[in-house]
């Protein structure tokens, strides 16, 4: 019966008379967020059947089992199929990675301050009685806990380092979407079959093939679903036509490569969803969509596909990227508040000829954002000296919307950064953004970009207390001591990261994704085995601004002006500036200049320490033979990481937040406006932040008004480009608006603000982070 409709016609592109994007948006957000155990249960079921087989094959079979059995649905109005869960925005648990954290939070997760989820009593029981007992003792977490050596554990206990990705799949990877779009699913099945026939003992080929075959079947399940839906009497004739076309397309894409923009988007989304089922990871980012989709876009436009249809499909894609939310533990949700799921997209930038690659699709993708305005996809614009002014203006107009999207990345510093790490010129120019603000070479990198956080300020605190009796100390000796302490912890963090790296190799190979990362198929190895072309690990140094401010105060107060002894200063810190030290806090805050005011004396303290750190870290190789790269961003971790540090000489009280962003000045301490901030930040050699950096700037909406406001803003960004600062993002909201939103959240359901490298709904953030964002609004004009 269905075959009657197999001949596709173009009618379906014109049949929708009115855009349904708003309805799709509403559908996504109408219910509370829940935890879904579906993936966990299916995964576990499969695992019980594959006892004794190699881990990579077991994982592949489990992923295939999910693809074959997970409940699927086509939501009202959707033109693209593929939903990770039937119920939108469900949080997914991966007990195979870490079955324990949820046990501690089970009864509080529905009303925790950040990123709450509803967990049904029935599901809790299933979790306690079936999932937990099975995974206890055999999860990745158990492996990590057993393997962490004493010194690395001490660094964790000292609150200096935090290891990430110990409870979920390894994300922060961009698959080679261009390759799968150019070849189709069938090509990979054939290729992997041939490879496997030639090397039957290679488990990677077998595993990858298992998932690609399941992906093809998954497409066919959606075909069936679409046909089923089309039979329903409750749908309109127009919808029926669409569903039949969708069914047809699913059939084609189960083996063939896409022939149109529509098909390309469908395959792209499905690839992303399969990746999600495989690893439940954070940030399987989208890369340079305007580049790899452009040939499809161009072809469709030339073939007369209506613009409205193109917008509708792309809009559907935008909306769907908000369906996948990440369930994190309470601690982790503090660091990554508001669901940064990392559907990050990089637009524009240089091409392999060194020319600007901005095309019509780049414009369309920004333009469409104006009408969708959701936190995902997290659009980024790659800026360089050759950026067309028209595109730059469009970028500025989009930023003016106030949602913090797009963020800006600077080719003029990022490309040299990659070159310095042995990346080829072509590949360096092809970089994209992964996660929030990390940069990677798409389709070629396993970069562990988010593997660990490294708290500079805590190291300083430890050093100060260790030296407190040394009143004979000189400033240079103090700095030398601090640098030595940093070196020690750098070693620890690389050891800790390597354990997590190894754990993913042992427990969580991801053959499907690996097949879409270059050199893995040639090498016959999963990315966790080191199959990728580039193999980095990225460690984020945090607290630079506070560290520089503190050292400057110490230098002046103790060593140059001799106002107090070193030991006395440490006493004051221990007393948290209370009692007789109250005035001292005022004094150090107000009478000493701070990082962010274009004062070279302070800025160079930050620059020297960061350089030392980056070079030291770069001496280490991870277990895949790749370099460790330095990053300088906090996401929202400047709040929890601040909780780990007592009072500091810059006047910061114990447990107060650290400077936000990574390279931003301490909140409220920059007095001279955004040009001075950029100048300070530019003194830290941004080329060294190969893994990523983050700078927040706030602008009053009034400064961007009118065409000359846009022009001056664009000029400001060109100066940013020349100053070779890696990244910047903007919050353009007035404080009044945000205060009002805090008071009347019900009126601001759609208000999106920049958190850190990503945007989130303001009302989804806890009070502390809201306050931080408001505070960051105050001081820039």
């Amino acid at each position, binding site marked *: 019966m269905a075959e009657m409709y197999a001949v596709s016609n173009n009618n379906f592109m014109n049949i929708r008379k009115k855009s349904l994007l708003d309805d799709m948006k509403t559908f996504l957000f109408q219910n509370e967020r829940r935890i879904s155990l579906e993936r966990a249960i299916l995964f576990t079921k499969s695992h019980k059947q594959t006892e004794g087989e190699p881990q990579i094959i077991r994982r592949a079979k489990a992923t295939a089992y999910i693809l074959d059995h997970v409940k699927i649905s086509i939501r009202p109005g959707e033109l693209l199929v593929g939903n990770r869960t039937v119920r939108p925005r469900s949080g997914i648990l991966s007990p195979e990675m870490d079955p324990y954290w949820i046990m501690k939070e089970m009864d509080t997760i529905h009303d925790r301050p950040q990123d709450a989820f509803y967990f049904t009593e029935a599901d809790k029981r299933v979790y306690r009685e079936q999932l937990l007992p099975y995974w206890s003792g055999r999860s990745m977490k158990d492996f990590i806990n057993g393997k962490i050596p004493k010194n690395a554990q001490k660094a964790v206990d000292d609150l200096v380092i935090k290891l990430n990705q110990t409870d979920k799949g390894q994300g922060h990877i961009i698959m080679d979407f261009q390759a799968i779009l150019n070849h189709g699913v069938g090509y990979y099945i054939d290729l992997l079959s041939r490879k496997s026939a030639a090397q039957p003992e290679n488990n990677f080929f077998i595993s990858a093939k298992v998932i690609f075959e399941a992906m093809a079947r998954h497409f066919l399940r959606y075909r069936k679903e679409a046909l089923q839906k089309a039979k329903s009497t409750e749908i309109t004739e127009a919808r029926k036509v669409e569903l039949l076309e969708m069914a047809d397309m699913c059939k084609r894409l189960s083996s063939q490569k896409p022939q149109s923009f529509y098909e390309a988007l469908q395959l792209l989304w499905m690839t992303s969803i399969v990746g999600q089922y495989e690893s439940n990871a954070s940030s399987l980012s989208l890369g340079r969509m305007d580049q790899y989709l452009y040939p499809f876009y161009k072809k469709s436009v030339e073939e007369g596909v209506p613009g409205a249809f193109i917008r509708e499909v792309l809009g559907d894609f935008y909306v769907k990227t908000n369906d996948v939310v990440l369930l994190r533990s309470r601690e982790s949700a503090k660091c990554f508040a508001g669901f940064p799921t990392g559907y990050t997209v990089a637009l524009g930038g240089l091409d392999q000829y060194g020319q600007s690659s901005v095309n019509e699709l780049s414009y369309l993708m920004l333009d469409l954002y104006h009408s969708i305005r959701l936190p995902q996809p997290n659009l980024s614009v790659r800026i360089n000296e050759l950026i067309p002014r028209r595109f730059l203006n469009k970028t500025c107009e989009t930023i003016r919307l106030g949602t913090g999207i797009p963020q800006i990345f600077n080719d003029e510093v990022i490309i040299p950064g990659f070159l310095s790490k042995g990346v080829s010129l072509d590949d360096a120019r092809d970089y994209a953004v992964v996660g929030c603000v990390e940069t990677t070479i798409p389709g070629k990198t396993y970069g562990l970009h988010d593997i660990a956080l490294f708290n500079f300020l805590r190291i300083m605190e430890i050093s100060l207390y260790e030296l407190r009796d040394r009143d004979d100390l000189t400033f240079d000796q103090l700095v030398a001591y601090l640098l030595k302490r940093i070196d020690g912890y750098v070693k620890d963090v690389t050891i800790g990261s390597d354990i997590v790296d190894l754990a993913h190799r042992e427990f969580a190979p991801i053959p499907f994704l690996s097949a879409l990362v270059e050199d893995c198929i040639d090498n016959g190895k999963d990315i966790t085995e080191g199959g990728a072309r580039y193999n980095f690990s990225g460690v984020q140094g945090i607290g630079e601004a506070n560290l520089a401010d503190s050292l400057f105060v110490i230098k002046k107060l103790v060593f140059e002006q001799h106002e107090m002894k070193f030991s006395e200063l440490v006493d004051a810190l221990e007393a948290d500036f209370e009692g007789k030290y109250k005035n001292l806090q005022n004094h150090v805050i107000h009478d000493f200049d701070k990082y962010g005011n274009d004062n070279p004396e302070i800025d160079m303290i930050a620059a020297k320490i960061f350089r030392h750190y980056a070079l030291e870290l770069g001496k280490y190789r991870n277990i895949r033979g790749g370099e460790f790269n330095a990053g300088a961003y906090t996401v929202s971790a400047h709040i929890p990481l601040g909780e780990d540090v007592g009072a500091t000489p810059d006047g910061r009280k114990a447990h107060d937040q650290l400077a936000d962003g990574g390279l931003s000045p301490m909140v409220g301490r920059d007095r001279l406006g955004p040009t001075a901030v950029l100048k300070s930040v530019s003194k830290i050699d941004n080329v060294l932040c190969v893994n990523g950096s983050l700078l927040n700037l706030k602008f009053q909406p009034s*400064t961007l008004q009118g065409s000359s406001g846009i022009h001056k803003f664009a*000029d400001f960004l060109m100066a940013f480009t*020349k100053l070779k600062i890696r990244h910047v993002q903007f919050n353009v909201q007035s404080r009044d608006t945000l205060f009002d939103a805090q008071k009347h959240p019900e009126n601001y359901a759609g208000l999106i603000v920049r958190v850190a490298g990503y945007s989130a709904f303001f009302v989804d953030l806890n009070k502390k982070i809201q306050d931080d964002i408001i505070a960051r609004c105050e001081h820039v004009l």
Partner: protein
Amino acid sequence: MTRGLVFNIQRYSIHDGTGIRTIVFLKGCPLKCPWCSNPESQGPVRPSVWMKDGAEEPLGKWMSVDEVLHEVEKDEIFYRTSNGGVTLSGGEVLMQADFAAELLKEVKALGISTAIETTGALPLKQIRKVLPYTDQVLFDLKIMDPDKARQIIGEKISTIKQNFEEALNSPAHVIPRIPLIPGYTTPPENLRQIRDYVTGLGIKEIHILPFHQYGSGKYEYLKRSYRLKDTPLLKQEEVNTVKAFFESAQIKTVVSGLE
């Protein structure tokens, strides 16, 4: 060496001339506008003090041309990308015309755009010193009625007009700026006089600056009363009405310096 008395240097100014600018505020002003948002600059060119947060704070710092250059150069990269530069403001710049001229000359020699913001209340010889080195003149026009102007702000309209016309006859680009101060500059009769005056001289563009309260705190530091404490801000419609009034005479009217 000439020194200037500077009371503030403000970076990233986008409302006072082309591009991104740094404003150098020079101390000293012969007038007494009741709405003045820099009251600390009024009076002779002399350092003074105010009380801020319980502590005495000096106002005004004698700086050499080189010292000021060193400060304004910090944002050079922004001037280059935005065709911005340095604006001298006050107080009244012309009170320190020799210093201003020397500074502007140096800045202009670097290919950086120069501007002054003036009220033109001094004898012509002062403005003549600075005009050769000035690309843009942002010229305040406030109260046109000679008697009121004298009583309320202490200015002589004939001097203002002479200065204005002198600027117009120089190569500098002159933009009249009208602060919209409710009850002072906004009465229709005053606006009409301003419009008639500028149209008569062939002016094609003006800036209007709606009243703000940013300066109110400073009066407390100075222990002076602030007459406009309770004056409400203008509504958007009121600003639009003024804008339309000027535009009806074919004068491009820019609000707050941003088109």
